[in-house]
Structures are given as C-alpha cells and as structure tokens.
C-alpha cells in the first residue's frame, strides 16, 4: 500500500507534540525531508544549564541552533513556534545570559514566519535580564503579521508577563516583596504605564493594548488599570479581574 505524500505530511503533523517520534522518523532518509518541516515546527532554545538528555523537548543551545540555521536556512521557514527558556539564578547568570542573548538576537530576527513566541524567564526575574539587543530583536519579531500568540511566563515584578495573543492580553504578575498575604501594603502598585516605558518590548505591548478585546488582570489593587482600560475602551468587551490568583502568590 502506498501512502500519498500529502497524507504522510498530515500524519506527521499530528506528531509535532511527540518530538521523540519525529526524531526517530527523521532518521529514515526517505522520510527526513518530509519530517523536517514538522520537526522544527516548535523549536525550544535553552539558555543556561540544562540536563538535555533528560529533557524530552530536545531544546537547542543557542549556539547550536544558530549554527544549524546557518547550515540550512530553509529550517527558518519551518519554525512556527519559538520558545526561549532559561535555567539558573538570573542574578548569578545575568552576564552569561546577556552575552548569549546579544548573540542570539541576530538569529532571532531571521525567523520569517513565526506564529507563536514563548519566553519563559528564570523564575521571578524581570525584563532587565533580557539584553537590549534581544529585546529589540524580540520586538521586531512580535511585529510580524504572522505572530498571533505570545506568552511571557514567570516574569516577576512586572505587569505584562502573559500576552496570550495580540487581541487578548492576560495581565498577571508577581510582586517583588514576598510577605504577609494580609498586608496589601506590601503589594507593589500595578502601574502599567510606569513599567511600560523603559523597554522596547513595552512600547510594542502598549501599542497592541489598543486592540484588546479581552483582558485578564490579576490583583489590580495598586492602580493603573483605569489608564489601561481607557486605552482599549473602544475594543474591549471582556474583562476578567482576578483576586483569587493574586492570593496564591503568597
């Protein structure tokens, strides 16, 4: 029985979440050209230490990915989901991260058809650990018309860690001063525009807030939400105010 290339391609598409299987299929010389498109559909770049053998997501070290892409630039067109993750204490690894991020920024701007970008911070860190060059590159890619989904996860002391898509913005944030849950005085004020100003990424985010249709905001106890709502008052039709998850931070 012969299976058409179209059907085979469709079947392999279902295997994207099962990376191990795709890797096994890619070892077949006949299948490899078809598998490749799906193998690189979701690419994870990992900064910092990682037990890559134990990680079934098969993340790339940034240098390794840059080298692979320079050897075969066609792969750039296969990548639809780019996930950037970090491991290690941001304070201890800041210098290493910045150098690697500066370098990877040049690769990042080469992805032409990204649909989803996921940035996972090394836990409770803020935007500062992302180098300016990387932020510029990220802002550049976020502006691609193909990008429809964005996740900024685990950013601390920030207003905008989760941008679920260009039309839906989930606001949540950790607070830099952990302490007594009862004492709301210890909550940092949520002031989006104060924190939106300094970084290029925030410029991008602010411009897209105007298009918001739904907004989820965790613990808007410190102000700033009114300004945010004013910006998107023309389009917003769903508002989700979440006090419950704010309490779970403590």
């Amino acid at each position: 029985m012969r299976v058409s290339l179209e059907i085979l391609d469709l079947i392999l598409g279902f295997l994207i979440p099962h990376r191990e299987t795709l890797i096994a299929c890619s070892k077949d010389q006949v299948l490899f050209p078809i598998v490749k498109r799906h193998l690189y559909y979701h690419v994870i770049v990992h900064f910092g230490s990682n037990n890559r053998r134990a990680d079934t997501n098969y993340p790339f070290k940034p240098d390794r990915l840059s080298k692979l892409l320079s050897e075969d630039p066609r792969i750039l067109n296969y990548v639809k989901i780019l996930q950037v993750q970090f491991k290690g204490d941001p304070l201890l690894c800041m210098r290493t991260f910045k150098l690697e991020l500066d370098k990877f920024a040049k690769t990042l701007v080469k992805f032409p058809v990204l649909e989803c970008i996921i940035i996972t911070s090394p836990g409770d860190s803020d935007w500062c650990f992302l180098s300016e060059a990387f932020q510029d590159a990220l802002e550049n890619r976020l502006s691609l018309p193909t990008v429809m989904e964005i996740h900024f996860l685990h950013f601390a002391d920030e207003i905008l860690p989760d941008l679920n898509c260009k039309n839906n913005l989930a606001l949540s944030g950790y607070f830099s001063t952990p302490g007594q849950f009862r004492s709301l005085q210890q909550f940092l004020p949520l002031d989006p525009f104060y924190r939106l100003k300094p970084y290029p990424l925030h410029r991008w985010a602010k411009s897209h807030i105007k298009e918001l249709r739904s907004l989820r905001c965790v613990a808007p106890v410190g102000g700033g939400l009114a300004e945010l709502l004013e910006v998107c008052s023309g389009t917003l039709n769903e508002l989700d105010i979440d006090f419950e998850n704010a309490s779970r931070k403590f």
Partner: protein
Amino acid sequence: MGQAIPLSESGHNLPKFFSAPFDIQHLTIRTAVLPMYNKEIQTWTDWTTWLPAAAEAISQCISLTQHLTLSINIGLRTYSDLAEIDFSPLAILGSASLSIPHIDLYVHTGILPSALTRAELISLLEDYEDIIRSINEGVLVIHSEKRIPE
C-alpha cells in the same frame, strides 16, 4: 478561627478602574476567602477575604456590563468553617441585579464530597432581599461547587 480580615480594614482601598464611560459585555471577577495558618502557634487563626475587594469592583461596574460572573473560592478545611465567613459583601449582588441583566455566581469550597449545596448558599444569603428576588427572577444564577468554565 478568628475574624476575617477584609480588604477595606487592611487600610487599602481599590483604585477606580473606570475613569471613562465603558461598555463591557462580560465582566468576570474571581475572588477567594482563604484560611491563614499561623506558624508560630501552629494553628489556623484568621481568614483572608477578597470579597470586599470583589464587591468594590462590582460596585464600580454596575452600569457598565451586561453579564457579570463572580467566582468565589472558599478554602474550607471543615464544613463548620463556613459559619465564620462574612458573606455580607455579597449584598452588592442585590443592587447589581437591578442593572445587570445576567449574573452568574460560582462558589466552590474544595471539600469533597460537595460541602455547599445551592440551598445552603441561598440560606446564607437570605438576609439580602434583593439577592433572593434576583434569584427568583432568574437574573442571579447560582452554580454551587462549580468553577467557571474556562
């Protein structure tokens, strides 16, 4: 356990959310009432409640939305804890129901088997005439031991 510590008594008031006229089709507010554990004396001492914060948020949005969903997560340890919780901030739902055509109230306690029935929840709110009226009129719909569908 001691008394609940409402948001307003902690010296912190919610800021104004809406400085301009607004029309939100669906407003969701997720709130919680959670027990607090005192490590020093190794016992549960107080409740932290976000119900006043939710009530304040609702009061600001009463004329701005067509559909309100309020979700309350109550961190009960035992069913008897329920008597210690101050549900009075929910009185706002009575006045809200005069302006908002549809209100869904989800309450979940996390206790299995289900601790809080719809009838029990209504009995906790029976002092608030407007709430009972809005339930009877079908404006306020109670979903006991359920979470908001994602």
